[in-house]
């Protein structure tokens, strides 16, 4: 048995090409006074402050409030900004509603575009080449690998988030949640269900 109290990191790895690139760029920008190191730290804090609970709260409110739901589907950007969410990079959002007839799935084939103000940073698989290429090419196979079987008579809408809009999927409200509070419902809304690779949790 190895020492249970040994540090997890046993070897210092060499930084890869992109880590060197990022570090060099940051040092140059700070060194030339174009940005301050405090700004870098503040941006990291902003990124860390956003996570899927923000999107889940929007979805849960839409499940209990029909007017809110209608406004969210009509102009998600306005709703986000009125909701006091820090839309720190002035992103424009589109909310896509899962229905019994339509299943929405979001991917960015060109890079890793993602509604970060609502979901935080994207998971590694979302940025991976296999997901980015296969989600547009064979969405039903990809969904099946996530454990999400979509019946043949349900239309799949794949959304390639390739330019300026950022997409949030509104999953269907699970049955058996009548009378639940917004907070209880929000706990059923997972990150993956807001990307469209899975459904909301069931009670």
């Amino acid at each position, binding site marked *: 048995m190895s020492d249970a109290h040994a540090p997890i990191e046993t070897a210092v790895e060499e930084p890869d090409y992109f880590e060197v690139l990022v570090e060099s760029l940051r040092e140059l920008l700070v060194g030339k006074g174009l940005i301050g190191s405090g700004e870098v730290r503040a941006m990291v804090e902003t990124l860390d402050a956003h996570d899927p609970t923000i999107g889940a709260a929007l979805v849960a409110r839409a499940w209990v409030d029909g007017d809110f739901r209608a406004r969210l589907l009509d102009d998600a950007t306005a709703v986000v900004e009125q909701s006091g969410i820090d839309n720190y990079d002035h992103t424009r959002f589109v909310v896509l509603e899962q229905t019994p007839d339509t299943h929405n799935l979001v991917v960015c084939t*060109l890079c890793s575009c993602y509604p970060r103000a609502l979901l935080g940073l994207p998971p590694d698989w979302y940025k991976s080449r296999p997901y980015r290429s296969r989600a547009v090419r064979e969405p039903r196979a990809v969904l099946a690998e996530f454990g999400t079987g979509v019946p*043949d008579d349900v239309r799949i809408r794949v*959304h390639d988030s390739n330019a300026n*809009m950022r997409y949030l999927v509104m999953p269907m409200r699970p049955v058996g949640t009548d009378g639940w509070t917004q907070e209880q419902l929000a706990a059923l809304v997972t990150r993956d269900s807001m990307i469209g690779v899975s459904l909301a949790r069931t009670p």
Partner: protein
Amino acid sequence: MTPAFVPGQRVRIADRDAPGHVRTPVYVRGRIGVIERVLPRFLDPEREAYGVNAGTEVRLYRVRIPQVALWPDYRGSADDVLELEIYEHWLEQAEEDAR
């Protein structure tokens, strides 16, 4: 500025090589789709990437393409679609009889 295309209109995505920061994926170039919705105007990323960030706003659209038109061996419903954002200068009106 008035959008050149309206929802429901059939459009063809240009099939051309373009170097630089282009947001039109190769897999949809030359394909025919339908305008799903009209979006606002945004800075043209092809010029913004080179520092030209003033006065280059272009209209953006969401275009819907049948999956079976993109992938000949597509496995899934004939109703399945792919939707993505295309700038106006990549779109032209599609001839009505084009399939």
